[in-house]
């Protein structure tokens, strides 16, 4: 079964652009990305769009569908209101390069600013021992496919270019939580307090736990509840309660 749909796709570049209408065939079972591909193949061969796996695994095809940040390859046409125009625009938080493609360099820059995993001294490769229940928490965060939809949606930076330098965004604050919860990360031994760094250098304080990031995460990661809030609670403890801070330092050294 197929029908004609109206797609309204943003076309343009850094200089500006506009929504362009396409009448396009839609077949049973298709996802938004299929339809965008059909527009490319039949009407606009130079329509710029990123995609790789078409299976929700690589996080390349992020865009805003009817205003909501989503993966185009995981959004089935049948889940959109029937008969209504489908509007696709690029992620708003990042500068447009062309059409649906944005410059996501911000994220790569932030990734670089998060101090890497610090391997424990004296534990040789092959000698790492960790219990499953101790790695579960960090593993949840490592499901992240870096689609950057959470970064796109977070109001701290969405319409606030000025906050970008100071705020790593939910994806990378979560990365800090991940390392902080890694059972063998030796940051403490090197005098690096990841929680404090999140607060002091990566803008954890900007987050007011609205949970919008969690809502758009295609991997269903509980970013706010499981990463940001625990990070905050402990960061707050440490900041305002020297005893808690000292206690945790001592136990880490052991």
């Amino acid at each position, binding site marked *: 079964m197929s029908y004609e749909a109206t797609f309204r796709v943003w076309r343009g*570049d850094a200089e500006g652009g506009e929504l362009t209408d396409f009448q396009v065939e839609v*077949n*049973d*079972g*298709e*996802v938004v990305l*299929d339809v965008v591909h059909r527009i*490319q*193949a*039949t009407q606009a*061969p*130079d*329509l*710029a*769009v*990123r*995609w*790789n*796996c*078409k*299976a*929700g*695994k*690589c*996080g*390349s095809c992020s865009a805003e569908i009817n205003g909501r940040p989503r993966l185009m390859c*995981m959004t*089935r046409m*049948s889940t959109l209101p029937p008969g209504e125009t489908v509007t696709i625009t690029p992620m708003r938080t990042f500068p447009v*390069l*062309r*059409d649906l*493609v944005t*410059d*996501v360099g911000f994220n*790569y820059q932030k*990734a*670089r600013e998060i*101090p*890497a*995993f610090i*391997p424990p001294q004296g534990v040789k*490769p*092959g000698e*790492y*021992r*960790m*219990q*499953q229940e101790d*790695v579960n928490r*960090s*593993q949840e965060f*490592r*499901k*992240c*496919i*870096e689609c950057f939809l959470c970064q796109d949606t977070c109001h701290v930076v969405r319409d606030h270019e000025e906050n970008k330098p100071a705020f790593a965004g939910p994806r990378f604050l979560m990365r800090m939580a991940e*390392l902080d919860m*890694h059972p063998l*990360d030796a940051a403490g031994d090197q005098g690096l307090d990841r929680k404090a760094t999140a607060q002091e250098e990566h803008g954890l304080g900007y987050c007011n736990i609205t949970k919008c990031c969690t809502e758009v995460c295609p991997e269903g990661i509980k970013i706010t509840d499981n990463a940001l809030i625990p990070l905050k609670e402990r960061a707050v403890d440490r900041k305002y309660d020297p005893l808690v801070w000292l206690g945790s330092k001592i136990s880490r050294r052991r």
Partner: protein
Amino acid sequence: MTEVERHGFDVVVVGAGGAGLRAAIEAREQGRRTAIICKSLFGKAHTVMAEGGIAASMGNVNDQDNWQVHFRDTMRGGKFLNHWRMAELHAKEAPERVWELETWGALFDRTKDGRISQRNFGGHEYPRLAHVGDRTGLELIRTLQQKVVSLQQEDFREHGDYEARIKVFQEYTVTRVLKDGDRVSGVFGYQRESGRFFVIEAPAVVLATGGIGKSFKVTSNSWEYTGDGHALALLAGASLINMEFVQFHPTGMVWPPSVKGILVTESVRGDGGVLRNSDGKRFMFDYIPDVFREKYAETEEEGDRWYQDQANNRRPPELLPRDEVARAINSEVKAGRGTPHGGVFLDVSTRLPAEEIRRRLPSMHHQFKELADVDITAEPMEVGPTCHYVMGGVEVDPDTASSCVPGLFAAGEVAGGMHGSNRLGGNSLSDLLVFGRRAGLHAAQYADTAGDDRPVVDQEQIDAAAEEALAPFSADGGENPYGLHQELQQSMNDLVGIIRREGEMEEALQRLATLGERAESAGVEGHRQFNPGWHLALDLRNMLLVSECVARAALERQESRGGHTREDHPAMAAEWRRVLLACSLADKPVPGEGAIVLQRKANPAIREDLLALFGVDELKKYLTEDELPGAEADLPPQRADVDADKKSENGAEH
């Protein structure tokens, strides 16, 4: 003279998948200035899609496992066509490569005693695959990506510049390897964002570009799999071997059309899923080949008992090797017993409680629910074969990963030899790390020896490469590259697919030749800035070259082995095991005749101590009389009765 952005490095790695990143990390740790080029964003390479795991005989779950057993399984999987030395190095080094990932922050699933958990997989005798649920590839990519970042942080501390010694050029596509005389001098390509050209000068280039699946219509592969590295190597004067061997995974989604080809993991069958045709029959019982007859259940009852009691029952034929299952499904559909959408039914809903299915197969449950509106806990899936992996690739020296072109190295799916005629699940991810590291190491050493005598990039080659890349813009009223691509995919699928016939492959070659001519005049609209039509027009050259290699080699090899099945030559022939088919670029291509020449090469004889790991009875199935070890009595008796197929095939997936 063409305007290009220019850079200079010691080592250039083309590809940021598992193989490319591991190579780059090594080259950088050897102190060489290293560039990583990838045509998508950093962290999005195809490796991210790998699900099941990474094979390494760490022996965490069964301490009987060791590199010899892994080597044996790999050779059997590849039907002994593998380069024995690659299989040996791979089996020996895989554990170290996996352990090292932990020191870079990887978090694998754990055993009860806190070590890396390992799961069963098709063709592996013991539980061997390190994994993270069903997203192992993501863990691998992220770990390597984060290791690159940590090296950059190190450089930042030392030099105040993150990119002092390792730099990622993302969304840069290489279209030519440049040469100075015989040796490599760098790479040429375009930036996706601006469409501008770039040249990176370097004495050593590592190709790590992955596979070729996008030449087939139904595939589990991603956008990037247009065979670029295979083609770049050919164009630079290297040769490709084993190109006739393409792995079709038996279970890909078949409906809806938009998801056709997406992988349905083998764990579904490992956990009890059964295959049925439209008559409701468990047809795999009709497809047990004679060589496997003793090892597979004859009745459904026995097959079903195996899931609980593997010691006293034989396993169900749904768990036959992948090529067997793929062929059986193909036959059922051809005989008119397929599903409405041209597949067969894979049913787990009547086999396990819904709760159990959701627990064991979360991503499959999610995938079918989201993409096909199918609740696998309540109804069967429809599945059919999908093009999954290419065993063929650049012919390399096993120890150094270097091709026959000085300065050109290759690792990962783009390299050939390691997997012979058929790859075992999990053996790719380990291959990426083992040979990625070797390629990086030897590229670094090679770059070092170049010293002051560095190759010089030739302006004429740059001009020619630029002209080639711009051609699609000047093709007046040229053909739509999307249309050409679809025709190519259809032809390969129909004519050089799972089951091959002489006449069809000849027709394929003719079609490829005409498509090649038409592709030369493929035209594009718009400008150079992020223009997918243009990119596809350029990728066509690569897909056509690689497809010709596959078709030509498949036509030549008159036997059936692993990922190459000839209806007109259904048996495996020991004589053919000694033959490798090598493709290279014709010096003077005759118009309409194609661009590739084929050469027969001898497959190097397996080292004796490695041969001794197998029993003579088993070797007889694969080797010719005169290859068999002379003195049978010398063989350790316990080896002689090793059961060729005593492998755990449950819980398997690629």
